[in-house]
């Protein structure tokens, strides 16, 4: 470890973790596309890349945890981490806004225009004269290419339950945080465990919903613009819940090892910010994808 006593700001010594991460990302991306193209090594390279990525994250974060435990990080380093995580979450918000943008565009402009509304007697309208502007889109402009869904998810069934689950998990993680601030380890661990359980429950419900959509309702990724926006938005959200749940599990394990105290628990807070972020995204999903 470098020791630069003249500055209190901790400067890490050279690290091999970033390049390991780059190799992992390269393998994942290059492997995934070769897999899509049916090249024999594609899925192996993809899986290898994922394995390297997990190895890298474990190694990199272990290093950080170790350095933190040794007291290398002062408040200024802590603030750098906080700004870093906040702006990372902001970039995630912008990622989701691209998909929300696609949904709003389709509903407000794309689909009505395709149906020839608002004075848009376009060629497209002339090709597909039977297409009507209704949302959800059950009959696509070209039903031969894109078979529409028979029905869509009922708002006040699983989706409403999932809303309740995620909102509750937001409460439990706050209870855990209060436990941490009060030095009440039991409250901390129970709160975290409940949050993890609720995250897993959410994912189970989501998987169940997807099964129902594919098997019973004919609602698929390929069933036109409704399926496209529905699955891309809920799918990327589900992916983020999965990542969030894994992060929560890591934090729970670290809580059990007694890693955090009242002053030093940036990782805990970062994960809880992330969890609140997926929570807020879900609320928007519930309103704009399932409800309205």
């Amino acid at each position, binding site marked *: 470890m470098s020791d630069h006593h003249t500055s209190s700001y901790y400067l890490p010594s050279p690290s091999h973790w970033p390049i390991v991460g780059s190799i992992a*990302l*390269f393998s994942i991306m290059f492997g995934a596309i070769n897999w899509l193209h049916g090249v024999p090594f594609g899925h192996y390279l993809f899986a290898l890349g994922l394995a390297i990525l997990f190895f890298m994250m474990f190694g990199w974060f272990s290093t950080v945890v170790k350095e933190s435990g040794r007291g290398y990080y002062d408040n200024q380093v802590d603030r750098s981490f906080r700004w*870093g995580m906040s702006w990372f979450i*902001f*970039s995630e918000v912008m990622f*989701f806004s691209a998909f929300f943008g696609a949904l709003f565009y389709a509903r407000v402009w794309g689909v009505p225009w395709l149906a020839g509304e608002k004075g848009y007697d376009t060629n497209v309208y002339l090709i597909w004269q039977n297409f009507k502007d209704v949302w959800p889109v059950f009959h696509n402009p070209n039903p031969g290419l894109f078979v529409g869904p028979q029905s869509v998810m009922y708002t006040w069934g699983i989706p409403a339950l999932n809303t309740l689950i995620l909102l509750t998990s937001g409460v439990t993680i706050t209870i855990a945080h209060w436990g941490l601030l009060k030095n009440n380890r039991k409250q901390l661990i129970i709160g975290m465990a409940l949050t993890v359980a609720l995250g897993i429950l959410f994912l189970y419900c989501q998987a169940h919903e997807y099964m129902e959509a594919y098997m019973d309702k004919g609602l698929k990724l390929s069933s036109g613009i409704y399926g496209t926006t529905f699955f891309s938005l809920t799918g990327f959200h589900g992916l983020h819940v999965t990542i969030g749940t894994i992060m929560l599990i890591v934090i729970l394990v670290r809580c059990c090892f007694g890693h955090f105290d009242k002053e030093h628990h940036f990782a805990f807070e970062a994960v809880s910010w992330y969890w609140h972020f997926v929570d807020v995204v879900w609320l928007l999903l519930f309103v704009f994808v399932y409800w309205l």
Partner: protein
Amino acid sequence: MTDTTLNHDINHDAHHDEHPRLLKNPLKWAARWVFTTNHKDIGTLYLWLALIMFFVGGAMAMIIRAELFQPGARIVDPELFNQMTTLHGLIMVFGVVMPAMTGLANWQIPMMIGAPDMALPRLNNWSFWILPFAFAILISTLFMSGPAPDFGWTFYAPLSTVYGPPSTDFMVVSIHLLGLSSILGAINIIATIINLRAPGMTWMRMPMFVWTWLITAFLLLAVMPVLAGCVTMVLADRHFGTSFFNPAGGGDPILFQHLFWFFGHPEVYILILPAFGVVSEVIPTFSRKRLFGYHFMVYATVAIAAVSFIVWAHHMFTTGMPIAGELFFMYLTMLVAVPTGVKVFNWVTTMFRGSITFETPMLFALGFLVMFTIGGFSGVMLSLAPADYQYQDTYFVVAHFHYVLVPGSIFGIMAAVYYWLPKWTGHMYNETLGKLHFWLSAIFLNVTFFPMHFLGLAGMPRRIPDYALQFADFNQIASIGAFIFGLSQIIFLVVIVRCILKGKPAGDKPWDGAEGLEWDLPSPPPYHTWMTPPSPALIIDREAEAG
């Protein structure tokens, strides 16, 4: 990147900074550059990557201009021509201007705000080392069976979805990686500027280069994820049966353009704002006056960035959007001219009654000032929706954006390199060669790009390898200009290499008009600088100056 060994000399004079040499100890040498967490090392890596890609992307431009020297399909296949226009654009944007600006940020921001390094040094390494892998994937598309991406750097649907070659998927993931690198880099720059400023370096005392980069970093954070979403949709439409951009399934190819340009328009400000910052450092130095209207420069930069989010559809005037949309985007686009005009006015006024000398950095800054403004004017012409119906997809557009990118962003980068190279290497560069590089570049880029205005107004479409006979004269002039401009850039490489190897000692402050914390450090600066924050007395008090 074997040339990086030359950078060894950067730290040679600093007592405790012995670094492994390439020839004596190649493994240790490689390990230093691959594992480094030092902002100066990482800045050097970014700058070398940008320089190498500059020649790669430049070679592609030469192929384009060779083909366009005469009408008819002469030198290359139309298919290869399309691949060259696509990759030239992608490489120049993502491989040259963005890494070069990030390299400048890495070198300069910590030294200029009195910070010991970037806020998150390991993440900084990762931001860089994602790039070589991303470009390996992108360039590998040239060697695949089937064409490389051949639909222009904007990869509009359905050209990239329904009709895109298999290599499109590789382009998609390389853009994912480039975006990730930019996002991580931007996070680091924001955290550094917010959190690592030395005591006394208040917001309104920050150098303009730092301000422009802070705002650029926010733009990056806001739009790179949208690009990631957009390319993800392309991939999904190609392989997973979605219909984001396919009207047969209720989607819309115009949605692609909205998403792309929501990224693409702020992206052009990402490419130019750091250059604004460089020029705002260079012009005061060589005018021996402080920057005129510092506060308004800051506000103008913020204003440009804010407006950049609500002008994107001026790239889409001919897509048949409602008249209200055309007017909205037309007027807001014209509004950008106001803060930009404030900046140009302030740069000119900074020089007014200054004791001006014309060293190479100043020449590039002045070239920027004049020729970027030409690009700005043609931008105002393009912003007029009714006029744009004629200009859309002609060489006029090519002329416009090359005027803002070449004598704009690229000249900004070159001004920065000449300005700070003595600081980085400890040696003065060869002034005669520098001036030769400037004059050849300035003259021949005009020979290249100015005739394109006429070609465009006369109706020559862009991205087509063949053209009607009446366009031949101007195309030949443009091609000759391009070849000489391209060759002139070898001088740049020579100047840099020579400056790294030898040259007159630069001294701490080679420019007598320069102000700022980086000039209070030795040249070359030691490996770690500002380990103890600079004395607040060293920081320019711009508040007092304003009053």
